[in-house]
C-alpha cells in the first residue's frame, strides 16, 4: 500500500480538495469566444466567396452578432475575476509568454475588425439602422469606406478570427501543469467546435431554406472533423506522460465519463450528426430545429467538461487526513 497523505489540514479555497478555480463563467467565455470566431469567419468567408445570394444572412447580417456575443463573453470573464477593480491591469502590460495576455490584446484588435466587418454590410444588412448613420456626413463616409474595402476587411478578419478561435483552446493547453489540457489538439479542436456552433447558429436563425441547408452541410462536415479531433485528443493523452494517462481516466471511468460521453459526444456530436445526415439526405426533416440547438449545447458542454476535468487533473495526488469541511467552522458565526 502507498499512502500520500496531507497531515496538516488544508482547505484552501478554490484549491482543496481539488482545483476548482474556474466555473461556468470561464466556460461560457470560452464558448462565446469560439462562437464569435466562427461568426466572423463565416461572415468573412461568405464575402470572400461572393455568397451574398446563396447565404444572404451570413454574408450581410451575421457579423453583427460577433461583438454582441463577444461582449457577453467578456462580461462572464469579468465576473470570474476575483480582483475586479484591477481588470485594467490586463492592458498595462503585455506578457509575451502568457496566452491570456495575448488573448487580452487579440480582443483589442478583434473589436475594431468586427465593427468594420459589420459596417461593410450595414446598408445591405440593416438598412433601417444604416439610414441613421447616413444622415451624418461622417457616418456616410465611414460606411462608404467600409463597403469599398469590404473584401479586404474580410481577408483581415479571417486570420484574426481564426486566431481567436484557436486561442480559446491554447489558453488551456498552455497549462503544462494540468495534464488533461496538455495537448496540441486543443487549439484546433476549440476552433472547429467554435465554427461548428457558428454554423449551427446560422442554420438555426437564417430564413432562407437554401442558406439553412448550406450551413447544415457545412456543420455536418465540421462535426465530422471535430469527432476526428476529439479522437486525436484522447489518443494524444493516452500515449502521453504518466500524468496524462492518469488524467485521461477522468473521462474513461472517472468522474467525468458520463458527462463527456453522453452529454458532449452523444448529445453534442453524434445525435446532431445523425439528425443533420437525415435532413440532408432528405429522410427526415422533422427535427431540423433540434440539431443546431444540440450543437450549440455540445459546444458549451465541451468547454465546461474540459475546464472541469482539466482543473482537477494534477501532478500532485494527496489524500487528506482531515475533513476540510470542518474548517468552515472558522468562518461561521455559530458553528
Amino acid at each position, binding site marked *: 500500500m502507498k499512502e500520500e497523505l496531507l497531515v496538516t489540514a488544508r482547505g484552501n479555497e478554490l484549491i482543496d480538495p481539488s482545483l476548482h478555480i474556474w466555473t461556468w463563467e470561464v466556460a461560457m467565455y470560452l464558448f462565446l469566444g469560439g462562437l464569435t470566431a466562427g461568426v466572423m469567419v463565416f461572415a468573412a468567408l461568405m464575402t470572400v466567396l461572393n455568397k451574398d445570394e446563396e447565404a444572404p444572412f451570413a454574408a450581410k447580417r451575421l457579423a453583427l452578432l460577433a461583438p454582441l456575443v463577444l461582449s457577453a463573453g467578456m462580461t462572464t470573464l469579468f465576473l470570474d475575476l476575483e480582483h475586479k477593480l484591477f481588470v485594467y491591469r490586463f492592458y498595462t502590460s503585455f506578457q509575451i509568454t502568457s496566452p491570456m495576455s495575448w488573448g487580452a490584446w487579440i480582443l483589442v484588435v478583434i473589436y475594431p475588425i468586427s465593427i468594420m466587418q459589420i459596417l461593410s454590410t450595414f446598408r445591405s444588412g440593416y438598412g433601417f439602422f444604416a439610414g441613421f448613420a447616413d444622415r451624418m456626413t461622417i457616418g456616410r463616409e465611414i460606411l462608404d469606406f467600409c463597403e469599398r474595402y469590404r473584401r479586404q476587411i474580410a481577408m483581415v478578419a479571417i486570420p484574426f478570427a481564426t486566431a481567436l478561435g484557436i486561442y480559446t483552446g491554447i489558453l488551456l493547453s498552455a497549462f503544462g501543469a*494540468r495534464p488533461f489540457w496538455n495537448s496540441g489538439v486543443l487549439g484546433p479542436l476549440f476552433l472547429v467546435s467554435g465554427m461548428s456552433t457558428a454554423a449551427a447558429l446560422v442554420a438555426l436563425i437564417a430564413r432562407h431554406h437554401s442558406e439553412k441547408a448550406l450551413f447544415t452541410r457545412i456543420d455536418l462536415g465540421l462535426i465530422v472533423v471535430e469527432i476526428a479531433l476529439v479522437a486525436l485528443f484522447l489518443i494524444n493523452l493516452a500515449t502521453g506522460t504518466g500524468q496524462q494517462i492518469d488524467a485521461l481516466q477522468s473521462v474513461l471511468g472517472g468522474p467525468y465519463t458520463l458527462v463527456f460521453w453522453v452529454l458532449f459526444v452523444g448529445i453534442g456530436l453524434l445525435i446532431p450528426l445523425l439528425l443533420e445526415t437525415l435532413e440532408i439526405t432528405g429522410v427526415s426533416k422533422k427535427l431540423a430545429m433540434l440539431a443546431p440547438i444540440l450543437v450549440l449545447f455540445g459546444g458549451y458542454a465541451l468547454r465546461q467538461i474540459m475546464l472541469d476535468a482539466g482543473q482537477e487533473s494534477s501532478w500532485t495526488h494527496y489524500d487528506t487526513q482531515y475533513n476540510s469541511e470542518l474548517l*468552515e467552522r472558522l468562518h461561521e458565526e455559530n458553528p
Partner: protein
Amino acid sequence: MTRFAMVIDTRTCIGCGDCVVACKTENNVPEGLNRDWVVEATSGTYPDLKTEFRSERCNHCSNPTCVTLCPTGASHLWKDTNIVLVEPEKCTGCKACIAACPYDARLVMHPDGYIDKCTFCHHRVEKGMDPACVSSCPTRCMHFGSLDDPSSEVSKLLKTREYKVLSPETGNEPNVYYLL
C-alpha cells in the same frame, strides 16, 4: 541572479507542522488558508514499512510557469532572485497562475481577491534571517540559503547528501530539496 533554496532533511522531519503554524503567524495568512503543508508518504506492508514526511510549499522554481503564464506581470521574480512574488496591485485574480503551478502551490486566494503565496519570507531573507518556517522547525531539519555560494549550508548539504526534488519531470526546476 541569486538562487535561493530550501533543503529539508526527511531523516529528521517528524511531520509536526510547526512550519505551517509559524508561517501562518509570521505572515498573517488568512484563517483557514495555508502557504505550506506537510505530506506523509508511507509505503510497504505492516510491519515492513517506510514513512517519509515532507514539508511542502512553493518551490520558487527556476522555470516558474506561474510567472510565465501570468497575463499582467503581477507574478514576478523578486529582485534578481528566483523568489516568486505576487504584486497585489497588478493582480486581476484571474487565477491563471494557480492552474499554471504543477505543485498546486499557489494556494491562497486572499479574501481580498488577489493571489497570496509563499514568499520564501523575503522580508526576513532581506534582513539576513531564515524564513519563519525554517527558523521555527524544532528538529532543525530545514535549511535555507543561496546555491550560488558554495560555502552555504544548503550547497554543502546538497554536495554531501543524497536528495530529490518533487516531480522533476515538470521541467520547472524546483528549488526545495529533500534530503533522503
